[in-house]
């Protein structure tokens, strides 16, 4: 495993109501496809794409989850190991936006406190059917301290940007972590007393 050809490996999990276009976003990014008439996802799906950012190979493991309620207990089990969550809603569906606080509660409950959450309003190609204004979403994301972006999986708008920006942020986050880690670890053989508090809860 460690001999694989990449510098970073990140887990990204897409969540959000059923039918907001999670699978299409993943397919667009990983395969460059927009499959019309995409059926509902069963359980979780799993895609891999390796991208190069500033000369470094970044392997993104993207988990596409089912939005339907009955799969919730399956999808929740993936939150904790996620480095990033993409919380998706449909700009033409008020309901999918109104459910966001509920999703945030789930994130709070199950995800690691280090997780990066991105809010994504999908389907901007259907501008004439828009129900959720950009301003509202921007305000909401600001209040929740989330990065926010609008995309169209169909027109391929901002999809690449979404994942690549996220990968960049994950890289810089990972760099900071290793820095903190190095400072905290005692020098070998020095028998320095160990401060347990800095050592726990690292993933």
């Amino acid at each position: 495993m460690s001999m694989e050809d990449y510098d970073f490996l990140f887990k990204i999990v897409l969540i959000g109501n059923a039918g907001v276009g999670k699978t299409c976003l993943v397919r667009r990014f990983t395969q460059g496809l927009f499959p019309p008439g995409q059926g509902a996802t069963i359980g979780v799906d799993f895609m891999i794409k390796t991208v190069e950012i500033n000369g470094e190979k970044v392997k993104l493991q993207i988990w596409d989850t089912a939005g339907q309620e009955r799969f919730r207990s399956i999808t929740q089990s993936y939150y904790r190991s996620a480095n990033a969550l993409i919380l998706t809603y449909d700009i033409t569906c008020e309901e999918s936006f109104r459910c966001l606080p509920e999703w945030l509660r789930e994130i709070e409950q199950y995800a690691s406190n280090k997780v990066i959450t991105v809010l994504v309003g999908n389907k901007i190609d259907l501008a004439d059917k828009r129900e959720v204004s950009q301003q509202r979403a921007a305000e909401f994301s600001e209040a929740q301290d989330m990065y926010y972006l609008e995309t169209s999986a169909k027109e391929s708008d901002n999809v690449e940007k979404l994942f690549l920006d996220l990968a960049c942020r994950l890289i810089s986050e990972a760099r900071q972590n290793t820095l903190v880690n190095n400072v905290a670890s005692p020098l070998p053989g020095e028998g320095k007393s160990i401060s347990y508090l800095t050592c726990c809860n690292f993933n």
Partner: protein
Amino acid sequence: MAAAAAPGPRAPGGDGGGSSSASSSLSMERIQSLTDLSDLEAAYGRLCEEEKVVQGELDALLEQQSTIENKMVALHRMGPNLQLIEGDAQQLAGMITFTCNLAENVSSKVRQLDLAKNRLYQAIQRADDILDLKFCMDGVQTALRNEDYEQAAAHIHRYLSLDKSVIELSRQGKEGGIIDANLKLLQEAEQRLKTIVTEKFDMAMKQGDLPQVERFFKIFPLLGLHEEGLSKFSEYLCKQVASKAEENLLLVMGTDMSDRRAAVIFADTLTLLFEGIARIVETHQPIVETYYGPGRLYTLIKHLQVECDRQVEKVVDNFIKQRDYHRQFQQVQNSMMRSSSAEKIEPRELDPILTEVTLMNARSELYLRFIKRRIISDFEVGDSMASEEVKQEHQKYLDKLLNNCLLSRTMQELIGYYITMEEYFMRETVNKAVAMDSYEKGQLTSSMVDDVFYIVKKCIGRALSSSSIDCLCAMINHSTTELESDFREVLYNKLKQGFPATTFQDFQRGVTSAVSIMHSSLQQGKFDTKGIESTDEAKQSFLVTLNNVEVCSENIMTLKKTLESDCTKLLSQGFGGEQAQAKIDSCLSDMAAVSNKFRDLLQEGLNELNSTAIKPQVKPWINLFLSVSHNIEEEEFSDYEANDPWVQQFIVNLEQQMTEFKVGLSPVIYDTLTGLMTSLIAIELEKVLLKSTFSRLGGLQFDKELRSLIAYLTTVTTWTIRDKFARLSQMATILNLERVTEILDYWGPNSGPLTWRLTPAEVRQVLALRIDFRSEDIKRLRL
């Protein structure tokens, strides 16, 4: 060249004067202007040479004359022949043109013949068809009169497969009127037959007369009623499924709770239902294939699935009601929300229902896999010549049927609840195992490690037995969380209490550990820390926890390997989608990563033990070295030999101290600990060494002491300690030198196989410890 091209007939040489300017390099004027004798002679010589050349060329030309004349004669002779050939050629051309015209004529005739032949065949075909049509008309009537429906249907089938244009044509013929009438009769017969077959089929179905049902089922496709036939036949089959299922459900409701299968009775009922449907498919697939052609099984199963869904719904409804499934789920959810509720549901109570749900799902998966395989192979036969689009279309139908059927959705819902409940079961049972943790003397680990892994294995195993890959992965994820966060936290808290030291630090440590115990019990509430243990107990608890941590790390890897092979088995049976393997691999590798976290924890614990228990003891023992003078003469040296001043006691002390750990720790951990200890000794000894002074014999004494120490340490550890003591050994070498300059025998190009671990500055520093070495000599050394 110019000479060769000169015209032949002109006489050679004769009038060289006039035209010689062309062939001679000397003009007449130039010759005439010559006055000098030598010049004239030279000009003459050149002219003579030129003449010779011209003469040679002329001779060659003359030689060719006869050949050319011969050729001319031959040409003259050929003249008349050529005229003959021209005549022949013209004749030949005429003949070819004629033949060509003839051939074209013939082939166009052949083409016409061919067309005529085809028309003739068509005419015969039509005549045959018309005859057939008449035959059908008569035949149907007779067959219907005789109630020979198969025969009638065969006639209708023949009629339906006739070319429609034939029928049109025959109506236009002379006998149009009669045919029209007959055709009408035939159409009437077709309608009548359809009605009769439908009626008869319905009647047979009502009476449950299988042979009759099958008889009429076979007639439908002959009348072009494939869909209708399949739908009617499935209606009949669904009725059978329904009545059987109802019977079974009644039996279930009346089952005694003491029955052996009572705990899985709903899973059994589903099994019976699925087996029934599978048997029906198995029995009737050949008929469908034979009479309806391949690719029709999908339609039949689609109809059957509707009934299956209906029956599943009933069974599951009853299951939910009787087992109180939703209420139990609610209760679990409430218990998970409020961490310390009085009404916590007892995890053991969930055990049977969890098992039953996974069994129900496993049966469903098995059934769905069965129909999937059947439909795929049926489509494959039917679509062998079909386009890629048709194949994809069919695949889509199949996916839709499998994914959207109520059976799938119902099971997904049950499994959704199951996962939450199983997670609760696992967490609560693990908590219980931790609370009831006990340690038996003579054991290295305490009971909770085995218990916890037994529980985790059981829960994942149960999820695996559901045959649902997503369910399995979810439970692997939850187990990873449970082990990494909750259980690791338990062990971590135990280690945090520290290993009580035995010296004056006792008091200090006692206070901090009491505080930390109180702190952790306030935080954790659920874990019984058994109050403040006595020092011995606290020591043992620390060592046992270290062993526990190590075993955990190993158990996780074992668990991962076991699960890997279990999953391979499941996948090889065809369960799970294309991504199944990748999903499982990813989840399992997350789990394996936890093993390393336990390793890290072990390392931290060992460092803690080393720095709080070993270092405070070992350091004073090593410091005693300072009180033993190494600035000694012969007399003291032999006295040391008789009464060892330091190293023997040091070794005895070490031995005593390590016995406690050797008994209490697993061999692997003990080995790591001794490794840490040897490093510690090497570092500390180096420190005191640099604070001492040595005479020549003192150096020898130190060398002896170091050898004894290394010899002892080699016996207690499997690590190679030579490396750790390399610096010290080299220092001993330096302290044993006769003269300062002797170091050069070992240094630089003379070092041989020895790799110096000391810098030149350090070498000087050590040399300076020898009181008999002069500092100027040391300074003068060129290292």
